[in-house]
């Protein structure tokens, strides 16, 4: 294919929709990463592993329940919860004992978690590819300006704003959300008004990891579920969090939009070098706004 050979308005529109559905996954995963980074001040490298576990769990639950249309929805509901449970056990069992340690120790700990999770996934699910079908009515495509657009992507397009709304309600309308915003800036004063910061961290960590699991569950029907999907997502998620502004959930939304859209448009205009586009966008953002687009809590 030649450079920018077949761009029509319809193709561009279709590709933007594809990019936006990719944005949904990226936003959900990176908002969780950003939440943990903002409040606990820890870059959770194992976030990608939890995303992978979410995808495998979704496959397992859907397979165990069987072929009924409800199987996928059950899996979508319970796989992220299972991931949240795993993260809760890890946080209360080990992580919460390390908060007083220096930053590097925590970073190494989350890195070691990725190794452990990786091997656990290998033990439980083996190293084969898995794939999962979306429920019947979300399979196939419909046509937009004569070009096909997968129905499942439309479902993703609707999910993204819902999750964003949920996160807005969580951080602005619930007590735990308000406490988390306060703890992101001054954890010492939060404890001085009688709040057990350790439990705040636990909840925020679990909510963040739930989002990783949710991202994994949502992505499951769109790609092969396989070892290594953790590495791919964690790099993207970190870049998104960095260009958005560390710890800022809305920054993660903006970053995911930039990443998802440049990726999709790259595929359209220059397929062989598509992967260059989002990374170039990241570089451009960082040249002009080294601290990210929105206010970083660091």
């Amino acid at each position, binding site marked *: 294919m030649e450079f920018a050979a077949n761009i029509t308005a319809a193709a561009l529109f279709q590709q933007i929709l594809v990019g936006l559905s990719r944005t949904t996954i990226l936003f959900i995963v990176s908002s969780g990463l950003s939440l943990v980074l903002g409040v606990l001040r820890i870059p959770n490298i194992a976030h990608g592993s939890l995303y992978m576990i979410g995808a495998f769990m979704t496959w397992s639950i859907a397979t165990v329940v069987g072929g009924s249309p409800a199987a996928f929805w059950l899996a979508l509901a319970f796989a992220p919860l299972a991931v949240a449970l795993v993260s809760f056990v890890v946080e209360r069992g080990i992580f919460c004992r390390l908060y007083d340690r220096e930053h590097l120790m925590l970073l190494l700990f989350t890195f070691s978690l990725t190794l452990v999770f990786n091997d656990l996934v290998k033990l439980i699910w083996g190293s084969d590819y898995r794939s999962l079908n979306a429920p019947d009515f979300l399979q196939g495509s419909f046509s937009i300006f004569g070009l096909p657009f997968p129905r499942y992507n439309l479902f993703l397009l609707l999910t993204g704003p819902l999750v964003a709304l949920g996160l807005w309600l969580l951080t602005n309308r619930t*007590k735990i959300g*308000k*406490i988390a915003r*306060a703890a992101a800036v001054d954890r010492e004063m939060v404890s001085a*008004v009688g709040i057990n910061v350790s439990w705040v961290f636990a909840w925020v960590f679990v909510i963040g990891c739930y989002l990783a699991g949710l991202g994994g569950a949502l992505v499951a029907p769109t790609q092969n579920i396989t070892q290594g999907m953790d590495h791919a997502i964690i790099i993207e998620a970190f870049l998104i969090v960095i260009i958005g502004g560390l710890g800022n959930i809305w920054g993660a939304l903006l970053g995911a939009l930039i990443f998802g859209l440049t990726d999709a448009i790259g595929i359209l205009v220059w397929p062989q070098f598509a992967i260059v586009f989002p990374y170039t966008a990241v570089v451009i953002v960082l040249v002009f706004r080294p601290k990210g687009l929105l206010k970083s809590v660091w």
Partner: protein
Amino acid sequence: MLRVNEIHTYYGLSHILFGVSLEVRPGEIVCLLGRNGAGKSTTMRSIMGLTPPRKGTIHFKEIPCKGKKPHLLARMGIGYVPDDRRVFADLTVDENLEISERNVDKNGWTRDRVYDFFPPLREIHSRRAGFLSGGEQQMLTIGRALMTNPELLLLDEPTEGLAPLIVKGLAEQIVRLKESGLTVLLAEQNQTVALEISDRGYVIDNGSIRYHGTVVDLRENEEIRRKYLCV
């Protein structure tokens, strides 16, 4: 109510407090006077459990505080107002008070009562705390501490950086808090205000208590004030 006995506190390797002892009895306002860097804030932080002492003991309501985390001390009834205010800048005034509500009982402090006590806060209840003036932030940090329904209030330099008129109003409010039954430990550089509203005072210098007595003693003891308090 509060008994601090021979505490030694360190920041990392630097030894800051050298055997500080003091006592606060129920219903008193006790001031801790000293110059900048004398150890006032460190004493307050030690009592709140933010920088726990390595040696010595602290008892609050006859309960040993050793090893207790700040949130447990807050729940036991110690309210803390830090010297640098530290409002939750991203939260509104309302939200600052809301998340600080502890030990609720029917005669206790509520958001409404804090607004009655500091009427200017009611006017700006939906503003982000980071955008408040110094005086407003000071009211908010005190209001926030009151929302934890404390029995003992640790006030660390509440008048620092405030205009004289605001300082006067604040001093009156502190006396009103005492009249409502609250016990106050007040760390101050501003001796005029502190000696006006306190019952007793301690003088701290270089991490040790140099003097203690009633405010009448302190007002009359020119030498102590010149030696330890004058800049």
